[in-house]
């Protein structure tokens, strides 16, 4: 082999290696610097069908929340059930929250487990629960306060300092088992964690098995049943004065992903046709980026403060009429 041939092959291999090494370094650095995966996932069992996360402090202090509060002054406050039972206020006491749902079984919706990190007045919560007839018990060294009768099944446990579990008694016990290593945790599911890695930089995000969403999506069930097979769905939102959102679906195979991409593209085309005259909707639809890559179909969008102002003005005008 001549010297220049050898040199060419070496240079070629070096270019290839350099790009791959750069990718590996970028992956390691990004993982080290920007890993936002909450450690509360250690309490989430492998049987969970949907996990949602929200950085409450960032959400509550965002300009968007201020606008929302102005608009929804008459609406029920977020987390009212938790507050009614325990005296915990979402906006004041909680830093971030993970909600784990076992999904629907036999047509019935199972209650979710709330894992909240924040600053809690344990004595006050204890008193509030006991006032409602809560019974104390101990499980894996943690005190559980449970209200369990024909219509209620709610348990509160302080799993760690500043970490509260709230949900059905069996759910809280399963979470403590999972943390103790007595049960499989969702973090051992590589597919799930890969999706979490994709979305966990958002202010709020959710990853769910698509079948767990039956009856919870805004789409009619007849439409959902016509969609190509989807295994997982993930969504995230960066909330500031507006919202930057990403919805990602993991289809069963590449063909299903392509079909889903085509279906969504069709809906977008229809929406563009209908919303072309409305500047707010047009701007929203123009911000939509739809991509299909392997088995994934992703759709990102942006709702700017200007769009929100326009939508708000239109809403007020309609109400005035």
């Amino acid at each position, binding site marked *: 082999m001549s010297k220049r041939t050898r040199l060419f092959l070496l240079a*070629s291999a070096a270019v290839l290696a350099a790009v791959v090494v750069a*990718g590996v370094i970028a992956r390691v650095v990004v993982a080290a610097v920007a890993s936002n995966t909450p450690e509360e996932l250690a309490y989430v069992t492998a049987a969970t069908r949907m996990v949602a996360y929200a950085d409450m402090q960032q959400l509550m202090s965002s300009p968007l929340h201020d606008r929302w509060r102005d608009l929804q002054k008459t609406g029920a406050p977020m987390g009212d059930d938790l507050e009614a039972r325990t005296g915990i206020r979402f906006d004041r006491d909680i830093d971030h929250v993970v909600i784990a749902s076992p999904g629907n079984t036999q047509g019935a919706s199972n209650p979710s487990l709330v894992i909240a990190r924040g600053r809690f007045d344990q004595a006050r919560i204890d008193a509030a629960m006991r006032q409602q007839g809560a019974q104390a018990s101990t499980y894996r060294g943690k005190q559980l306060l449970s209200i369990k009768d024909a219509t209620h099944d709610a348990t509160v446990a302080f799993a760690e300092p500043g970490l509260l579990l709230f949900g059905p008694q069996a759910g809280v016990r399963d979470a403590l088992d999972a943390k103790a290593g007595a049960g499989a945790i969702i973090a051992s599911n590589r597919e799930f964690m890969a999706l979490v890695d994709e979305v966990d930089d958002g202010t709020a995000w959710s990853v769910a098995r698509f079948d767990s969403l039956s009856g919870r999506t805004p789409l009619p069930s007849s439409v959902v049943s016509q969609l190509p097979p989807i295994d997982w769905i993930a969504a995230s939102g960066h909330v500031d004065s507006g919202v930057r959102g990403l919805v990602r679906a993991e289809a069963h195979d590449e063909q299903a992903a392509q079909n889903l991409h085509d279906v969504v593209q069709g809906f977008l085309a229809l929406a563009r046709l209908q919303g072309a005259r409305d500047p707010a909707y047009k701007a929203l639809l123009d911000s939509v980026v739809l991509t299909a890559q392997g088995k994934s179909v992703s759709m990102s969008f942006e709702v700017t403060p200007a769009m929100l102002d326009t939508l708000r003005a239109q809403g007020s005008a309609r109400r005035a009429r």
Partner: protein
Amino acid sequence: MNGPALKPAARIFELALGQMLWGRRALFMAVVAGAPVVLALILRLTFASGSAVFIVNGNRVDTESIFTTAVSVLYLRFIVPALGVYYGTSLIADEIEDKTITYLFVRPISRGAIVLGKYLAYLVCANAVVLPSAAIVFAIAVPVAGMGRLLEMLLQELGRAALGLAAYGALFTLAGVSFKRPLVGGLIFVFGWEQMALVLPGYLRRLTVAYYLQTPETGVFVLLAVVVAAIGASIWTIEHREYVLQQ
């Protein structure tokens, strides 16, 4: 092909590799592999300056989509098959056309070693040009922050490109040893039949290489089988066929 036959194949490999890299056909390879790099550079600079927004089918194209589009459309649908046809058909056909095959056949080496050596040289040469080209497009198109996330995809796409080069190369090596004018037929197969069969309903798409490149789960085994079968058939054909050189 036995052990002693591999040594002559290695000698042919060295000789053919030098000819491929520095011969007249190298210019075609340089242009084909360089074009996506230049295109990616132009698009990246355009995006960076913010002077243009690209919308395809109503969807805004970002820099990451440039890479995925470049790989799936430019590399896998054009560059890889084109190089496979151009080089694969010429491995033996050129020697016949230039009437230099006699010089190889009179040497004390098996004819199969000639095919094997030349095919391996094509494989190394094509991969040494195409894979770094795709990697450079990746480095240009994808922002550093996104590189880690898309690394797996890059490796998969490089693997698909390498597999495509091997499969197309093997098929057209067989065409080269079997037919007198294989290039035209090869081009019709790649840019006519494959493009048409992929959009036709039914099972016709299974008679294309591109289909198996798009379905890596099962496609890898099928394409590896195609490579082994095509190279085996090429060796058998060249061992048994009589080549009549036109005066």
